[in-house]
């Protein structure tokens, strides 16, 4: 009886974005204001408004390109696009969704491996201690990316200024944190 057939114009991915992040790709009218204000538009393979356009086409090849894009990883989630979007499209939230889908489907852009390595190192650090252990993060990140020499000067300078803890801060309820990680892990989803 319901007349709610609004989803019919959307592809599977489009529907997923609508349901998971409240972004209806058809609402974008391609004004480009998001791109115009995006601090990193020039470093993206497809600027935000192009991503919206690609998703609008419903063309599976273009949707695939979006998932495999560098854009979704270099996006800073600075929220500027959303703040100024005349159609109030929550692009940052959509980017989160696209990143997670790309990870799940193993379609991650190769250029993004350092960014993801950093995120993984970061999450690993809190998975075990409950809080961020900055030295641990650096070491782990360097192990993942083999970027041994980068930022080498920074750590001693930080240590000197008392900005780094030698030992991690451990919270008491570490098993609780571990359990949160386990339960929210995509692999363990029931």
């Amino acid at each position, binding site marked *: 009886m319901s007349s709610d057939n609004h989803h019919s114009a959307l592809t599977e991915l489009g529907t997923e974005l609508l349901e*998971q992040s409240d972004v209806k790709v058809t609402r974008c009218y391609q004004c480009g204001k998001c791109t115009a204000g995006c601090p990193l538009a020039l470093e993206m393979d497809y600027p935000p408004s192009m991503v919206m356009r690609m998703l609008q086409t419903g063309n599976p090849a273009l949707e695939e390109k979006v998932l495999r894009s560098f854009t979704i990883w270099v996006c*800073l989630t600075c929220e500027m696009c959303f703040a100024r979007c005349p159609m109030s499209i929550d692009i940052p939230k959509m980017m989160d969704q696209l990143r997670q889908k790309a990870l799940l489907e193993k379609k991650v852009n190769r250029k993004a491996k350092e960014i993801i390595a950093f995120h993984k190192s*970061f*999450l690993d650090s809190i998975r075990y201690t409950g809080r961020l252990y900055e030295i641990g993060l650096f070491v782990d990140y360097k192990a993942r990316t083999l970027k041994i020499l980068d930022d080498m000067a920074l750590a001693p300078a*930080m240590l000197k200024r008392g900005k780094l803890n030698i030992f991690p801060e451990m919270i008491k309820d570490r098993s*609780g*944190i571990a359990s*949160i990680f386990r339960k*929210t892990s995509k692999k363990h989803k029931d």
Partner: protein
Amino acid sequence: MTLGFYPGCSLKGSSREYAESVLAVAKAFDIAIEEIQDWNCCGATAAHNMNRELSLALPARILSLAEKQGLSEIVVPCAACYSRLTVTQHELAADQTLKARISEVNGMEYKGSVTILNIIQMLDKYITPRLEGKVVKPFNKKVACYYGCLLVRPHEILKFDREEDPQSMDELMLKAGATPIDWAFKTECCGAGLSVSRTHSVGKLSGLIVGDAKDRGAEAIIVACPMCHSNLDMRRKEINEYLGEKVDIPVLYVTQALGLAIGLDKKELGLNRHFVKVTV
């Protein structure tokens, strides 16, 4: 009444001077502050980039702990943590199923009853009204107040100040004796979480910010976020490379500038920990 305190990881590590200055200022005004016990990391950018549920569960745990501890109001000086906590509260309030799911994941009841204050809101509520007469060493410098992204956006959720050309920090600094300048990069992004993984992007974005502040004659940049601070301060080498000149405008936390104005000691405020030397 006791004000709850969520420092977040940075304030225990690379930005400990922020915590030091917050606590010093609070102490100077006899504000009782109580840290949330056994708090965890909010998950920051990494969590919401990688896993939405995790990005809600971690902040929810923090808020649950605050509730358990009987705190009705907490201050979250880190703008990024403030954003994550507030967004989580907003999303869970809007979706009961999600709220139930997150409570189950955390194994902790989550009510959503805690009021979350960012540092400016905290200062405006508890300190600004009592500031008159306390400013013994006016911070008489031209300052560029830098708000960054997460203190003001998205406005629909945070409902703090205004998204374009915000004023709250400027007003506060004016009261501390400073002259806030009108500049163009108040809410542009510094590069945030890409600091380590894409340092050159951060050099450029932060460079634009520092460059504009310099061009308009700022003598200090005032921030309210450890990420902004570390990018503008610790990445000054990359910034100067991008700008092609040596810019030595110091970057202070809003609480440090305020602390100086009310006559607190430089060391007490952690000013010795900065990369760009603070000369006052």
